[in-house]
């Protein structure tokens, strides 16, 4: 026992190094697995307020472009309203209902294999995990951690991200993931080879998950190829969103999410 203690005291630097290094490694390995990297992240109070302070300065730099984006969206929505023939159709029983919360992006990254965003809405604004995040142009990601005033978004530009999407023309659905290469191109998989495809086809959300409502734009088909076993497509989808420059986003809350969750649990 005495010798053991002596050994530790003699090599205390090495022991401390080993401890800290292995702790850091374990954190790294956990961060590469989805749904396990939730402990300390950029949605906590301190980092959130630091990003917030800095953001209040830098937001002025993109005002022009943000105004243009908002104007475009207004224009599109107004056109829709003016051209509506009937009154707004009543929601059918089967359809979910969605609430939208506007929010600002405090921190964004796109150069890493696992990218996250930090938003300025949190539990106090009734934001919870698994809510979807979109912009006026397309999807951004899914909220995966929240604190009182901030939340973290698992970006579609994250190798752990999986979003259920479909081809607008043919309604075939598949999974959207990212290979970590280009921040403009994501990959759509699990579409069978007998589906007719052409470059430029629109990809939208499928609505089969409770996170996103159906028919939110995602991107357009850039190119496609068969996988190794020649039975499924790997489709490169060019995102409508410019992920490098995000400022105003919407958080989507599915008001039926609790009911759906209990249903899924009771089925299991």
């Amino acid at each position, binding site marked *: 026992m005495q010798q053991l203690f002596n050994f530790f005291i003699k090599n*205390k*630097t*090495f022991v*401390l*190094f080993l401890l*800290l*290094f292995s*702790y*850091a*490694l*374990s*954190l*790294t*390995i*956990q*961060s*590469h697995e989805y749904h396990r*990297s939730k402990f*300390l*992240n*950029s949605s*906590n109070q301190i*980092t959130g307020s*630091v*990003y917030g302070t*800095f953001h209040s300065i830098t937001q002025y730099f993109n005002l022009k472009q943000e105004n243009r984006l908002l104007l475009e969206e207004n224009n599109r929505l107004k056109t829709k309203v003016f051209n509506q023939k009937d009154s707004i159709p009543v929601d059918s029983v089967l359809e979910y209902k969605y609430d939208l919360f506007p929010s600002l992006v405090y*921190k964004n*990254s*796109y*150069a*890493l*294999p*696992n990218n*996250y965003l*930090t938003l300025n809405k949190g539990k106090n604004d009734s934001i919870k995990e698994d809510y979807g995040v979109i912009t006026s142009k397309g999807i951004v990601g899914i909220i995966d951690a929240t604190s009182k005033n901030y939340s*973290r978004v698992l970006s579609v530009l994250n190798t752990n991200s999986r979003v259920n999407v479909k081809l607008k023309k043919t309604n075939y659905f598949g999974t959207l993931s990212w290979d*970590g290469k280009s*921040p403009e191109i994501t990959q759509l998989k699990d579409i069978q080879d007998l589906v007719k495809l052409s470059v430029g086809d629109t990809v939208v959300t499928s609505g089969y998950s409770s996170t996103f409502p159906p028919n939110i734009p995602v991107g357009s088909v850039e190119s496609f190829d068969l996988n190794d076993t020649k039975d499924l497509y790997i489709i490169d989808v060019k995102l409508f969103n410019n992920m*490098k420059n995000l400022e105003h986003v919407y958080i989507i809350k599915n008001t039926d999410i609790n009911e759906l969750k209990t249903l899924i649990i009771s089925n299991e």
Partner: protein
Amino acid sequence: MNNIVLRTILSFIGLVLLQVLVCSNVNFLGEINPYIYVVFILLYPVINNRLLFLFLSFLLGYTIDIFLDSGGVHAAASVAIAYIRPLFLKFSFGAAFDYQSIKFSNTDFSRRLIYFLLLIGIHHLILFSLVIFDETKTVLILRQTVYSSIFTLILSLLLSSLFSKKET
């Protein structure tokens, strides 16, 4: 003594803010970012409590990790270069380094360059191996390491010369 403690704390906070608010948003040519916070580890006083130094390096890396949502990659890389630093001090500045306190500002530029280059290179290699975490993408890891190292090296040499001027 108090002066050194205060300077260490201030440079810690300053470098973290500089890193997460400015340097991580550079994205030069789409993906190249400098990791300037390593200057803290490179220029930490030579005569030190090694345990405290290791712990501070870990804390620095971990703080960066929390800000950037990167798990523990910066913490691992920082602790690693903090641990092997004495070896490289000996290699770059000669064996006499631990008998007399070296002021980094008084050393030769060429020696300082070698010292910076080696430690930054190792730091970035560990960092990108862990960030990319895929043995099939070795070329990508090496490419990112080289490009980012050059970027970090230039910035850290500038930053260190800036601070050494203040001293005199």
